[in-house]
């Protein structure tokens, strides 16, 4: 369960009670509240759809985000249009908020294309990054460069609890502190790095690691979308206005397996997973919206129907989608096709033709 220690920021308790003091200054209109719910439901639906698509062989492998919707939607919703997201491989929820083309995105998991994002700079969403911890440095570099241009925008980079063990995490945070880079380090502590539990990953609370870099660290209930939104919003403002980075530890849980290739029963108990199912971020938020009269049953049904449609569109778009023509691969390596590569291309294409002929 998310630590009950008061160092964990929370607005919406699991039991539905609202901490009014914590809620103070929350700048969300009713439409925003509904929109965040819409995104969360959408993330959940598309996520389940993708797990199904993998089982049917339409995706090669897929890393489910189920359980982490509040952490991803709440944080991404707090961003400005110019802010840049540097994700790992589990941030489909953040991609949805950013409006990334989900069929493009799923090409990564289908094994038909490595990037998952067309024109990342335009999309303000970097390509999927699998080498754990590696993307944080790119976020810091982008943030430094954006500050050099005097632009008021910040970067946010997503990573897991396991990623905090990587040297790149440390180097990225240290550079951010030294150069006062406008960046938010958003850690989703979902308690597991494949089979390695957080206790075996590090001996200190993640949010405290910020101490080592001279900028604030915050622990937030990652299953409370309002709290996540608020701390991220504040972090982005600090970043843009004062060049103060923030390390956010969103305490949440990976309800699904590490990926569709993983058998989580080998290393964790059903009881543990069940306990966290009771803390489902969607359920908690839905109850809040209905209690506040911001949403009603019919709205919820409507939202779910919309989500079904989007999921169906994603399925339709990715099902049977072909890989790129082999010729294109040779065009993507360099800005030009150097002679040695042109030779290899010609050999490859020659073979393809034969294949077709014979």
């Amino acid at each position, binding site marked *: 369960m998310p630590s009950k220690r008061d160092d964990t920021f929370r607005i919406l308790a699991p039991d539905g009670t609202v901490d009014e003091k914590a809620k103070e200054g929350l700048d969300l209109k009713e439409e925003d509240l509904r929109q965040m719910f819409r995104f969360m439901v959408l993330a959940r639906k598309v996520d389940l759809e993708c797990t199904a698509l993998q089982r049917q062989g339409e995706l*090669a*492998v897929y890393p489910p985000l189920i359980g982490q919707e509040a952490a991803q939607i709440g944080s991404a919703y707090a961003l400005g249009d110019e802010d840049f997201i540097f994700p790992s491989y589990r941030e489909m929820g953040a991609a949805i908020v950013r409006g990334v083309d989900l069929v493009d995105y799923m*090409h*990564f*998991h*289908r*094994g*038909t*294309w*490595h990037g998952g994002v067309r024109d990342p700079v335009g999309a303000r969403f970097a390509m999927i990054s*699998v*080498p*754990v*911890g590696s993307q944080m440095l790119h976020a810091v570099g982008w943030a430094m460069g954006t500050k050099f241009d005097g632009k008021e925008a910040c970067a946010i980079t997503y990573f897991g609890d*396991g*990623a905090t*063990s*990587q*040297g*790149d995490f440390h180097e990225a945070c240290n550079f951010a502190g030294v150069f006062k880079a406008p960046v938010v380090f958003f850690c989703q502590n979902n308690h597991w*790095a*494949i*089979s*390695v539990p957080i206790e*075996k*990953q*590090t001996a200190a609370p993640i949010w405290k690691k910020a101490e080592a870099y001279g900028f604030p660290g915050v622990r937030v209930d990652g299953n409370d979308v309002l709290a996540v939104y608020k701390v991220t919003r504040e972090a982005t403002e600090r970043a843009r206005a004062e060049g103060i980075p923030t390390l956010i530890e969103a305490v949440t849980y990976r309800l699904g397996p590490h990926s569709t*290739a*993983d058998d989580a029963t*080998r*290393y964790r108990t059903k009881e543990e997973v069940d306990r966290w199912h009771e803390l489902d971020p969607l359920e908690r938020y839905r109850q809040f919206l209905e209690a506040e009269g911001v949403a009603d049953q019919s709205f919820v049904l409507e939202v779910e129907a919309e989500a079904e449609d989007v999921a169906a569109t994603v399925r339709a778009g990715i099902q049977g989608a*072909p*890989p*790129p023509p*082999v010729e294109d*691969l*040779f065009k*993507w*390596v360099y800005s030009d096709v150097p002679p*040695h*590569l042109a030779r*290899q*291309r010609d*050999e*490859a294409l020659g*073979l*393809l033709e*034969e*294949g077709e002929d014979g």
Partner: protein
Amino acid sequence: MAEVTMAQALNEALRFSLSDDDRVLILGEDVGKLGGVFRITDKLQAEFGEQRVFDTPLAESAIAGVSLGLTQAGWRPVAEMQFEAFSYPALDQVISHIAKYRFRSAGTTEVPMVIRIPCGGGIGAAEHHSESPETYYAHTSGLKVVIPSTALDAFNLLVRAIRDPDPIIFFEPKSRYWSKESGDLVPDGLPIGAARVAREGQHCTLVAWGAMVARCLEVATAAAEDGVELEVLDLRSLVPLDLDALAASVQKTGRAVVVHEAPLTVGFGAEVVARIVEDSFDYLEAPVLRVTGYDMPYPPAKVEEHYLPSVDRIFHAVDRVLSH
């Protein structure tokens, strides 16, 4: 004479080594309860305890550097890198320390450690999970670099690697993990540094290692139907390289084609060609050709069949060499 997969054989080799020598340790990401993502360390933690077989935090440079430290305390660590592309964060420790440590000490200290690295493509995996980085390691003096192509040899090579006093990069060709072979798992095969003639032939030599050995044997079987006898040489060890076996085969056939998954430019195939030219030039009746991955990042899984050396591509090269 049981039938075993290469994955089982590797698991048995680790089990054998753990009981054979109580200084052997296994460490890496997810090697404990999970038994590794490919189950190569399956059940070992349960059998040998959490000190002999343990999970580490998610940091490859540390896995390598800490392993070096463990050797200086008298242990023989066998570290697992989860996938080849995730061994790159450890390259600095491997190149600047592990490979040089014995040399720097004027031979007064040893680094008996093994780094296991699943490698290669052909299994429809995600990005960063199908590369063949043997060049980076083979070019790094001080390392021995071995790679088995069959289940029984995997057992034998891994047991020998763990007993070796020098640091060894042990590549495991993923696409062969599930390939079966029947025979007894006893460490009595060829030593490290000896290549193996996987099939005899007199018209042309196919030089390969890891997963490409099976691919070359396919080609050889098909070629035999046209009366073309191809010799298939399984290098087994890239460093040290079996120069005698290479020369013997090529001097017999007068022709050679090298096959590997890694990109062409400075792939290990280039070294094989250069060695053949240095040792057997006067025996060559045709240029030595290379059939390899293309000079691009490993492509998406759904196109890898067009990237990896195919039976067709190898045939083409053989034809060119024979018709020269």
